[in-house]
């Protein structure tokens, strides 16, 4: 497991920031400003076809990629006073083109050394209805894919159309994390999430810079189950239902996951190394399979949202923009169905959430290099910058 110390070392430039953040998290601000309404301003004046990821291109401040679920990645850059989008790459994907289809192009991540090697990673549901995680290389001019390099990292068969995860990302340890849904249907009919031999319903962690014999990646030796018989060694954590959106805390390096619930509760959890996040025994903090379920060894959620507030949680991002804002260091997350957007802060030893706005069909949150947070609307195709 990467320790807090190691995470801090890896994110050394942000040490000063850390001081601030810890202060913010500990409620050390001197005065509580009155709640001002949060502005959700159209960031680019552009619309996208079902946007699901926004990511600033490393080393190219002010240039972004937007992944569209229907299969394209658009590059967004300034043009005059406005913004212009251009096609970066296009994938033939299965589904992801209408209504509540959970397939299509779902994930995008840059290699930690992208500025040098131009490698980036995508997660999509292939025409064969498999989850494919693929390494690709950007063109030298940064404006598009190079079409010169595609390497399949992982291919996992998806038994049903829904619950395909989505986010992929590099941890502060430099390894690629892949969030896998339980395979879909309802109630995890094959118990994938608790099955140690299945990659479904898991958080995976692989090293894409090295390769084990006959594999497209190496399994990091410090993965929790590498020596445990009956476990796939790629597994970092088990018991997830559909970890659609997640992120690493920029200071502590801990993994914050929004795990979409079944019929009662939505869940935000901090996923530890080797953790069992509970599904399908638990739905967030409630017994799912029946009363009196065993909770021993299960990681409890940070937030368990009732149906009245949320029905398909969209994991968020940490706001690091304006240091004088009361939301500085807060976790900004939302719900796809109700459109609520919350700011989650730690106060007096408790997690406190306040609704700061509403974004219909909010699919994702993102943070740019300046620390500002964005919210993506799947159906209106608009990327909003939050005025926190």
């Amino acid at each position: 497991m990467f320790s807090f110390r190691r995470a801090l070392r890896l994110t050394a430039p942000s040490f000063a920031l850390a001081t601030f953040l810890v202060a913010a998290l500990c409620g050390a601000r001197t005065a509580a400003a009155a709640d001002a309404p949060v502005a959700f301003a159209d960031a680019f004046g552009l619309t996208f076809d079902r946007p699901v990821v926004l990511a600033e291109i490393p080393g190219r401040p002010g240039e972004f990629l937007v992944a569209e679920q229907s299969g394209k990645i658009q590059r967004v850059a300034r043009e005059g006073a406005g913004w212009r989008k251009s096609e970066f790459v296009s994938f033939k994907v299965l589904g992801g083109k209408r209504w509540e289809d959970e397939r299509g192009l779902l994930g995008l991540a840059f290699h930690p050394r992208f500025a040098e090697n131009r490698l980036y990673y995508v997660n999509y549901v292939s025409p064969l209805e498999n989850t494919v995680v693929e390494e690709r290389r950007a063109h030298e001019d940064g404006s598009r894919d190079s079409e010169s390099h595609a390497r399949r990292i992982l291919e996992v068969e998806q038994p049903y159309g829904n619950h395909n995860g989505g986010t992929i990302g590099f941890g502060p340890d430099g390894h690629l994390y892949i969030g896998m849904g339980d395979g879909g249907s309802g109630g995890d009919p094959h118990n994938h999430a608790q099955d140690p031999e299945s990659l479904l319903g898991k958080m995976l962690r692989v090293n894409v810079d090295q390769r084990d014999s006959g594999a497209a990646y190496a399994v990091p030796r410090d993965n929790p189950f590498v020596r445990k018989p009956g476990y796939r060694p790629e597994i970092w954590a088990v018991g997830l239902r559909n970890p659609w959106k997640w992120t690493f805390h920029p200071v502590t390096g801990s993994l914050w996951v929004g795990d979409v619930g079944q019929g009662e509760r939505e869940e935000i959890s901090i996923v530890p190394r080797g953790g069992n996040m509970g599904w399908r025994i638990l739905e967030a903090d409630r017994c799912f399979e029946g009363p009196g379920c065993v909770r021993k060894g299960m990681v409890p959620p940070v937030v368990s949202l009732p149906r009245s507030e949320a029905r398909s949680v969209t994991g968020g991002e940490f706001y690091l923009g304006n240091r004088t804002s009361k939301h500085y260091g807060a976790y900004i997350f939302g719900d796809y169905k109700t459109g609520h957007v919350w700011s989650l802060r730690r106060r007096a030893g408790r997690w406190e959430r306040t609704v700061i706005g509403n974004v219909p069909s909010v699919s994702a949150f993102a943070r740019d290099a300046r620390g500002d947070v964005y919210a993506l609307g799947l159906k209106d195709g608009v990327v909003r910058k939050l005025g926190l």
Partner: protein
Amino acid sequence: MNTTAPHHERRLEKLSATAMIPMLCALAIDTSAQTIPNNVTFRNFFGTMQFNRPVQIVPYPGEDSAYVVVQQSGRLVTVRHQGGNWVKTDSASFSVFNGTSGGNEQGLLGFAFHPQFSANGKYYVYYITGSGNGVSLIAQRTAGVTRRPLTADAQSTVIRLAQPFENHNGGTIGFGPDGKFYVAFGDGGSANDPGNRAQNLDTLLGKVLRLDVDTADAYPADTTRNYGIPADNPFVGQANRRGEIYAYGLRNPYRWSFHPLTGHMWIGDVGQNTWEEISRVHQGGLNLGWRIREASYCFNPSTGCTSDGLTAPARTIQRSHGQSVTGGTFFTGDPTAAYHNVYIFGDYATDHVWAMRPSGAVLTDSVRIGQVLNVTSFDRDHQGRVFAVSLSNSASVANNNGVVFILESPDMRPSSVSVRHRDAAAKSPRLADLLRTPHAYQWRALDGSVIGTPATHKGPAWIKPKGGAKAHLVMIP
């Protein structure tokens, strides 16, 4: 080589006219009644080996475990089974124009061995060269003593033809069972066939050509045309009609093949906006309809178009299922298998792979048997195994990750009667079963060429082997 031409002619005559019809009646195991099972798996034939934009795989004549993989980006690669592993060796490379990115239709497109390659070392390539909109170049080359295509091999032009637009260049080249050399060119490109070339019998674009590359040059003064024109071609000697033309009315016949048993040509013709088309060419002179019709439907004029003299498609595929058809190949392995005499083809854009059975002039019993990303070719080896070539095994084309899949199914066994010529009397229970009832059969050399004439076996006895060379026994449907 021109002395062999009459022999080829005779052979085709026998195959098509005399032998085939009674043989169809002689088929003991009637596979036509069986539905096509949807149980095919696609296995990466060369393990983890990947190619740079592969568009075709061709087995080496006389070898069971050696193949040429054609890479659109301009190189031929030899893959041979050595010491328990597949070993990839770079072979000839060509200065191609484009063909190195995305869905570009140029570059190196087709390859064929001469039927007597083992003896004469000749092979043929089709690539786009030049600049501007590109020039189609089909070249004859001669491999050295290694009998492997190398860059330094002597090259001469068979045909050189400037393309008016970048797209629609066709691709497949090859020899028919008659020993003649076939080429299919697209309509020149752009969209809607702006020059109406496919219907113009005075241009080679939008046509299937039938050439004789083993005889005297019909155009000795022309360096861009170095071949003979078979005297029995349909338009020979007609004013304003080119003698090379065998069939016309094609838009982009990217992939085509001969049925190994009937000798008919089956073409995948890429459509414009609405319909993809598979066509059967069972004789010379056919008009396959473009741009009068897109598959079966009026295109220009959009209504009230003629059907006079047009050959209807064997199969049409609508836009929601196919957007760029990749013509396929017939499985003709084990004659008792459900896949015997089944045509397997696909679509480059939608990645679907279908299996269908011919019934006269049409394809029936459609089954979608799987998907191959960016499928560029379906090819067959000497054992009758079927391969599907993926230009790029990614949902977004890249240049280094093409893959060759082999199609496997319990109902697609390699020929059970693929007995070696000299081992024909081997005690194969399947062969014994087959021979209890009358059967047509044909010996074929490992390179697929026909040995002797087809015959019908009439009783429960072993077929006597002929000659000493390695060969396969092929049952004829």
